[in-house]
């Protein structure tokens, strides 16, 4: 794309269909995981009667495990798509932390959020601060939750199961004991919740205040631009 003084910026196709579907499934699964996970640690008020009349904890745990597998399979797929998808699909996995100029752009974004500058840069993909946040909190947060989650799940499936053999056997002693893994998994949930709050807020804010579309792009896949100057990331 040639950089010219004044040109009409067309919409760019950024988020391919599998990425969009994956994103909304993740959103749904993570919401389910947080709600059911909280209820596993702090169960609903006790119900009376006979045990065979109810299966409340059983269903809550079942939904947690189903949603967890959706996240795991989704995450594996997402890594696969980073290889076969377009260049935007790789962005959150590989922040160019070795490039000083990239850190300069991160700092530029920070200043934008601190309202020290009146206009942000224009990006087709994620802005550098978004890439950094997603890489640290989302990518590594999810890896942490998948590993600790499978270690805890392996305790139930027991010795001989793949979850136990590949996860529980080394992760549980690594943290100390089972209770510690529970605690860290629980703290991980709050990290993800904090990420979600920030993620949704900045998505809405950027949609209104930045120079490109955000929320509609994750539905249609197309990035729209609000002005005709060229974007700061080249594509």
């Amino acid at each position, binding site marked *: 794309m040639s950089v010219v003084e004044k040109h009409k910026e067309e919409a760019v196709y950024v988020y391919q269909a599998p990425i969009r579907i994956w994103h909304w499934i993740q959103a749904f699964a993570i919401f389910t995981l947080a709600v059911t996970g*909280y209820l596993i*640690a*702090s*169960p*609903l*008020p*006790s*119900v*009376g*009667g006979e*045990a*065979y*009349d*109810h*299966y*409340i*904890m*059983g269903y*809550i745990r079942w939904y947690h495990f189903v949603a967890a597998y959706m996240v795991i399979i989704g995450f594996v797929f997402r890594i696969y798509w980073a290889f076969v998808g377009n260049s935007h699909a790789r962005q959150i996995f590989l922040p160019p932390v070795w490039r000083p100029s990239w850190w300069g752009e991160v700092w530029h974004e920070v200043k934008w*959020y601190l*309202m020290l500058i*009146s206009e942000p840069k224009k990006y087709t993909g994620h802005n550098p601060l978004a890439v950094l946040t997603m890489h640290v909190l989302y990518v590594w947060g999810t890896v942490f939750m998948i590993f600790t989650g499978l270690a805890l799940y392996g*305790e*139930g499936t*027991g*010795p001989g199961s793949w979850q136990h053999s590949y996860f529980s*056997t*080394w992760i549980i*002693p690594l943290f*100390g*004991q*089972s*209770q*510690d893994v*529970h*605690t860290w998994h*629980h*703290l991980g*949930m*709050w*990290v993800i*919740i*904090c990420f979600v*709050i*920030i993620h949704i*807020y900045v998505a809405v*804010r950027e949609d*209104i*205040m930045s120079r490109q579309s955000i929320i509609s792009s994750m539905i249609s896949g197309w990035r729209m631009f609000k002005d005709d100057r060229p974007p700061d990331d080249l594509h």
Partner: protein
Amino acid sequence: MHETFYEVMRRQGITRRSFLKYCSLAAGALGLSPAYAPQIAQAMETKPRIPVLWLHGLECTCCSESFIRSAHPLAKDVILSMISLDYDDTIMAAAGHQAEAIIEETIQKYDGNFILAVEGNAPLDEDGMYCIIGGKPFVDQLRHVAEHCKAIISWGSCASWGCVQAARPNPTRATPTHKVPGLADKPIIKVPGCPPISEVMTAVITYMLTFEKLPELDNQGRPKMFYSQRIHDKCYRRPHFDAGQFVERFDDEGARRGYCLYKVGCKGPTTYNACSTVRWNGGLSFPIQAGHPCIGCSEDGFWDKGGFYERLTDIKGFGVEASADQIGMKAAAIVGGAVAIHAGVSVVKRITQKGDDA
């Protein structure tokens, strides 16, 4: 050479019939098929009793108290006929120099062929001066005997993990057996619990005697046959957990109806032990059956995980003790608040900018 178990048993007037019954029971207690009973009998008829030196570091003797209450096999059978308990300062007749001399005697006669059982652990601070046995630091005695033994059994949570004397801030630097620096490289079997179940203790010894090898251990060194499942997995109250029926307070209807103790802090879901299958006092009961939540006594650092009656662990290092939920909710509230303020400022800024543009 020591007599065989069988010879000792016969000398004590035990009939062959009773002896074979005992072998079947031992096979059952070990979770072996009945076909192993003749193997156990064969071992007991032909093998000499294994000498055991039972050392005591910082401990409360609850492991010994548990051990002597074993019902299958009876502790007296173990002590009198299965092993040759040469040294155990709590229950031996000898005292003082006589008692200490037995250690050297056993080391000389059975070098590399006796079992070292450790109850309690060694404090390392002040060169081990917080635990003195016969005028010397316990840690020296432990290292010396470990040098010559065949294998080490770490009885209880003290020897296995550290237990109460190693709880924060661990003032004497009490250290579990496998972490004692300079200890000879010998196989260590951890039998954690505060105390361990008596039948588990005697079964571990019976297994080692019968098959002349260590029982299969998990990657943390615990015998798989007793420590591969959580209390929760075999708890008879588990159906109430799955149903969502909990004791909310110790005096409520749920407590009377024997509902799940999860909400009053039961550590059954995170505790590996055989209490819910083997149970205690000859299979009579176990804490959960008596209406008390499991405190997780066989787990590493169970004293430092917050209240016994709380589900969520206390996390240190935040100035005050707080649970994951307290910390998480605070973080989420701070983030939420920051977002709200930021949003407010953004709106104001946008309005004023629009005003400028106009």
